[in-house]
């Protein structure tokens, strides 16, 4: 799939464009400026000897159909290619059909109107048929069409945050199962992938991004699970849509995911259930709301009670990224840009994670928590003390949510910030907490996780400078917890297999260095939508990072991962993962 296209919206835009064209040129003709009547040209092909009562509806129908097809073409191939206002994008795009109309369609229409079956073509006289008034009409008509299509066709993915009622999973269908027999995974090294499931809001909480909707997982959930099984993963990171399920305090639409959960229970892979992935339900607002922790704790308790067979959980995914994007970088949810808002969000997210873990443990005492966090590193560009201090601040700030979760002391600078924002008492409560024994620190890594602070104090992506081994080692040294590589991918699909193996070699090296490392993940199963721009705008651009594309056809990295798993899963050190067995015991 090239783009995620909103079919209905594109067809509506195309039809509206055709109507705008007709209204505009008909009005001009009525005012005494007759030009090119496309509706008559088309309609009289079918009804050459009849009046407007017949040719106008026929011509208009054909015009609307052609308009819809062009609008779909625009949606697939042109929309969001330039950072221009939508109407302008449509106007520029309309140059293509205008040129084709002038050079090919109009002359051919003249041919089609002839009362003979063969002609000897005289090119010069043929093209001379396009008079200036008709050419003007064609151009005006196409301009009206393009402006209308451009203005209407926006936001092809996501939905208004207050209108989410009809979203959800397709009913179960009969599917052919091609995966081999399920292998017992208890105690073996975790090979995982995930279903991308982010659901933050944007545009001041008016627009809901929903990656499971954009990637059509709700339609293809059975197929997605089957593909995960065929690849050979033992575990699947899976985040049921909190914002759809938890529709009001104390109200949960479990029926939405019952079939999907039953499928995973029966056939695998074992889910690592991700309960909060960058967003909250509308009624909770955003991560500045002090009620977030209580509400999510209630959700986790209800989830664990209903699906008591689930053992692996990620209560809150990437708390640092969530707090940063929502409250410091101003991209998601509350869209604030202040240290105070960041501290508030980080504390609320950590409190939610703690509350959720406790609630799950009450229902399932042997639950395992995989706390996935984005591994970050900031490198100062130069010896400028201000730049170095900025890099140090960022390198301390990246740890704040995990420090709270794992009862680890924050740096002096962060402590001062916590104090300044009136959170010291909360901080002390986090420090006094006993962290559950079955806890795994998940460390995600992408090529943009290592950043340079440039001379202007701005962040720049540095690419893979030190690599996962070095960055993950920093997290290991700080927390000394069992670890797992919980996310990676590569936006350049052709380089993805190489990236996969590089990450895998990093994992092996860290294991050999004595770090208890229990799993490896390629994230995600399918391509993602708009993650190349951090979901900032609803463009519908496909990022080719998946093991499979959005048609569910495999990418090279899917085959490489399959081969990697097949090569390693029966090797003794992976078949019996000592660190995981000790944790599960």
């Amino acid at each position: 799939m090239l783009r995620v296209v909103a079919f209905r919206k594109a067809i509506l835009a195309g039809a509206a464009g055709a109507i705008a064209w007709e209204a505009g040129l008909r009005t001009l003709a009525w005012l005494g400026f007759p030009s090119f009547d496309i509706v008559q040209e088309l309609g009289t092909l079918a009804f050459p000897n009849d009046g407007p009562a017949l040719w106008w509806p026929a011509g208009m129908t054909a015009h609307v159909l052609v308009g819809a097809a062009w609008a779909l073409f625009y949606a697939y191939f042109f929309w969001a290619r330039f950072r221009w206002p939508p109407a302008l994008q449509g106007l520029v795009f309309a140059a293509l059909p205008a040129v084709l109309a002038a050079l090919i369609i109009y002359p051919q229409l003249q041919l089609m109107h002839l009362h003979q079956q063969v002609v000897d073509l005289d090119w010069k006289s043929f093209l001379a048929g396009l008079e200036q008034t008709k050419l003007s009409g064609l151009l005006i008509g196409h301009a009206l069409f393009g402006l209308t299509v451009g203005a209407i066709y926006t936001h092809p993915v996501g939905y208004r945050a207050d209108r989410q009622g009809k979203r959800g999973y397709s009913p179960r269908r009969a599917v052919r199962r091609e995966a081999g027999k399920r292998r017992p995974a208890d105690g073996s090294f975790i090979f995982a992938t995930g279903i991308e499931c982010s659901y933050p809001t944007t545009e001041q909480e008016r627009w809901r991004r929903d990656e499971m909707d954009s990637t059509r997982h709700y339609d293809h959930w059975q197929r997605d699970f089957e593909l995960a099984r065929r690849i050979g993963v033992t575990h699947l990171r899976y985040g049921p849509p909190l914002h759809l399920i938890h529709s009001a305090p104390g109200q949960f639409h479990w029926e939405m995911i019952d079939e999907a959960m039953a499928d995973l229970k029966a056939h695998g892979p074992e889910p690592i259930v991700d309960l909060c992935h960058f967003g909250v339900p509308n009624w909770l607002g955003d991560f500045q709301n002090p009620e977030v922790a209580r509400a999510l704790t209630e959700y986790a308790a209800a989830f664990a009670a209903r699906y008591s067979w689930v053992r692996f959980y990620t209560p809150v995914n990437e708390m640092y990224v969530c707090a940063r994007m929502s409250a410091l970088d101003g991209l998601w949810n509350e869209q604030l840009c202040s240290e105070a808002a960041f501290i508030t969000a980080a504390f609320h997210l950590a409190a939610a994670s703690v509350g959720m873990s406790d609630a799950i443990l009450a229902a399932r005492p042997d639950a395992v928590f995989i706390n996935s966090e984005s591994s970050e590193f900031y490198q100062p560009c130069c010896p400028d003390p201000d730049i170095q201090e900025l890099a140090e601040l960022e390198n301390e700030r990246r740890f704040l949510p995990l420090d709270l979760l794992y009862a680890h002391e924050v740096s002096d600078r962060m402590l001062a910030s916590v104090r300044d924002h009136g959170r010291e008492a909360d901080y002390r409560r986090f420090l006094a907490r006993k962290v559950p024994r079955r806890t795994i620190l998940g460390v995600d890594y992408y090529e943009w996780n290592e950043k340079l602070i440039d001379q202007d104090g701005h962040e720049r992506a540095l690419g893979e400078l030190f690599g996962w081994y070095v960055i993950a080692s920093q997290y290991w040294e700080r927390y000394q917890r069992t670890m797992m590589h919980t996310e990676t991918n590569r936006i350049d699909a052709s380089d993805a297999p190489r990236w996969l193996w590089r990450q895998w070699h990093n994992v092996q090296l860290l294991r050999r260095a004595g770090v208890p490392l229990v799993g490896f993940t390629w994230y995600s199963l399918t391509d993602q939508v708009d993650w190349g721009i951090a979901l900032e705008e609803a463009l519908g651009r496909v990022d080719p990072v998946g093991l499979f594309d959005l048609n569910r056809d495999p990418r090279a990295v899917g085959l490489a991962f399959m081969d990697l798993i097949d090569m390693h899963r029966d090797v003794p050190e992976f078949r019996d993962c000592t660190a995981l067995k000790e944790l599960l015991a």
Partner: protein
Amino acid sequence: MRPGILSAHGYDPGPTQRPLLAGALSGVLATIPAIALLYAFGSLQIEAQILGRSEYVTVAAGWVVMAVAGAIYGRAFGRAANDVRGGWLFGMAFGFAIWAAGAVMILPLVSDGRTPAGHSAIGVFLSLVLWGAALGVVHPFVHRPLHERLETAAKRMGSHIGTSRPRR
């Protein structure tokens, strides 16, 4: 400007795909309704007359040309050709391009300017657009059983995928 038209897919077809074969077979299948439409509009007879061949020869040649065109479609659109929702549109656009290049440009050039007009011109246009739409619709379904199995493809590609031999 943002990345090119098919960049999200990657320009290469997927590693388990057989785009040329699938495209050629789809092109052959899509020619059936197209020929029916040509016949209904009387365009087949006119085209044969312009080309100076019998209708049978014209149909046979058309089938071969459309198989080749289908293979080109499968290779050019790669992964996009497997999109069930949008395939008809990509195919229709391809059919339109074939019409513009073949019927509008090339046919008059090879026949001393003789070209279909009236109903037969309508028939030629509609049949190629229909051919394209049908090609796009059937391609994903024709292609699916032709895919190489994941398991054999993974073995075939092996662990060297994405790596290169060091230069000495």
